[in-house]
């Protein structure tokens, strides 16, 4: 009976994990999608190989010692005279073991050094520059351009072109965060008051999950992001769409929704380009409907979840800075209709 319950629970847990996986691809450092992640993966494999071999050798020696004790011909008490008369054979073995350990460690140090060198030598010609800011608990991304009119902000989803280097300028708005997309590169800490640089290149198109990797408060676990690697043409199309201001509401309901947005608490923290809302405390909502998740990967982006999130964010992300917004059902409906037009 107990066993059956356990199996059922495990099955349910599996279902939950599958459902979660549908929402965002699981992140996996063992499936590198860029040159640098591949280098890190190679170093990891070498380390695993050497450490496994050493572990196996130590275990074998240990098991042999256990096996030998009862089978040994010498059942005499332990010889403690060796301090005065060192045993040459034992000394030689210990020296050999120390030398082998030092050599293996040196191999690891050397491999680490060479990997770090190769990581730093990514060619950066024609790189995409993105300013990424960590907030409690979401990610802001600003796409930089020499032409200021082409600057735009987005949040929690970073699109990058395949095969082109990307330079992330990482900074924090509050506490220490850490940017980690395991399939693309190692971790990089975001220290308040400093700008950290992270350079990487994605070679395979796809969705890559990332996560804040430095404990940053209540909802650290729900501070995910997605890096989306597009083919160059697709990326250019996305850029053009994101640079455009939000479309003006068309229907009466959408116009009412925009009015609700402007007169309620929304406009105090969020920005929608092309409108009067220009606050930078929360994520930029100019193209909210083009994103696949809400609340930094915590919820899928659909009408029901968006409604629930607006009414009571604390239910999903306790401690988040967004306050609950009590709206009448007509106002909420109109607001949702307006937000859905922000493609």
């Amino acid at each position, binding site marked *: 009976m107990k066993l059956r319950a356990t199996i059922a629970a495990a099955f349910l847990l599996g279902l939950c994990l599958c459902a979660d996986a549908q929402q965002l691809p699981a992140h996996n450092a063992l499936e590198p999608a860029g040159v640098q992640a591949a280098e890190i993966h190679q170093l990891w494999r070498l380390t695993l190989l050497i450490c496994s071999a050493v572990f196996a050798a130590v275990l074998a020696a240990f098991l042999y010692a256990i096996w030998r004790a009862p089978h040994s011909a010498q059942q005499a008490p332990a010889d403690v005279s060796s301090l005065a008369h060192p045993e040459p054979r034992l000394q030689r073995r210990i020296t050999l073991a120390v030398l082998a350990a030092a050599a293996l460690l040196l191999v690891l140090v050397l491999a680490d050094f060479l990997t770090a060198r190769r990581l730093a030598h990514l060619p950066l010609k024609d790189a995409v520059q993105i300013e990424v800011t960590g907030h409690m608990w979401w990610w802001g991304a600003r796409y930089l351009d020499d032409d200021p009119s082409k600057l735009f902000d987005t949040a929690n989803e970073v699109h990058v072109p395949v095969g082109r280097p990307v330079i992330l300028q990482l900074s924090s708005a509050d506490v220490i965060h850490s940017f980690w997309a395991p399939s693309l590169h190692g971790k990089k800490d975001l220290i308040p008051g400093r700008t950290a640089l992270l350079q990487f290149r994605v070679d395979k198109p796809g969705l890559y999950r990332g996560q804040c990797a430095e404990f940053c408060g209540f909802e650290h676990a729900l501070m995910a992001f997605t890096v989306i690697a597009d083919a160059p043409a697709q990326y250019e199309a996305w850029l053009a769409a994101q640079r455009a201001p939000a479309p003006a509401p068309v229907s009466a309901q959408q116009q009412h929704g925009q009015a609700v947005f402007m*007169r309620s608490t929304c406009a*105090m923290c969020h920005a929608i380009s092309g409108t009067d809302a220009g606050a930078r405390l929360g994520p930029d909502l100019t193209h909210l409907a083009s994103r696949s998740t809400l609340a930094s990967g915590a919820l899928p982006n659909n009408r029901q979840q968006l409604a629930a999130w607006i009414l009571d964010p604390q239910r999903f992300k306790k401690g988040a800075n967004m306050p609950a917004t009590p709206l009448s059902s007509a106002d909420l409906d109109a607001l949702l209709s307006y937000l859905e037009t922000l493609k």
Partner: protein
Amino acid sequence: MKKPLLCMLTLAACLSACYREERPTPPPPAPPQLAAQSAARLSDIEPGAPRPPAALPNKYEENAYALSQGKSLFRKFNCSGCHSQGGGGMGPALMDDKWIYGSEPANIYATIIEGRPNGMPAFGGHLTNEQVWQLVAYVRSMSGQVREDAASSRSDEFQTAPPEGRREKATPKNAADAAAAPRG
């Protein structure tokens, strides 16, 4: 053997009663109702006998989390743009012993919600009730009106004034200030 257990139980009881540290915040006080709002009056002229000033306690003034949220909102919503860090600039100072529109929580609530002449915008509708009460608590802490162990003791930014928790409690210069007499 029993003594340490007793000590621990007492400590646990103390901690559980620690409203000062409660988080996330308890439900905010209700917005001042019509009666309280009319008591948060803005003029000396009044029919009948003068009424006592509005006594609508703000429970957030005893909660360290609400006070620190208020402090953070004060900067985020750009109150500091006019009032600076409390010393005043374009807007009046908030850390001194003068109250143009009354020193009671209900007065400050009304000031934030309704706005005031000469530049104070009306934030009604743009802030949640909870946020307004957090701001009210923080604004009162600037002149030392709240419990000093609940008021903020540090700032994220450089500040020349002593922290809110170490300020002398300012008392209204004259009785008319406390009961909100408009001037100038």
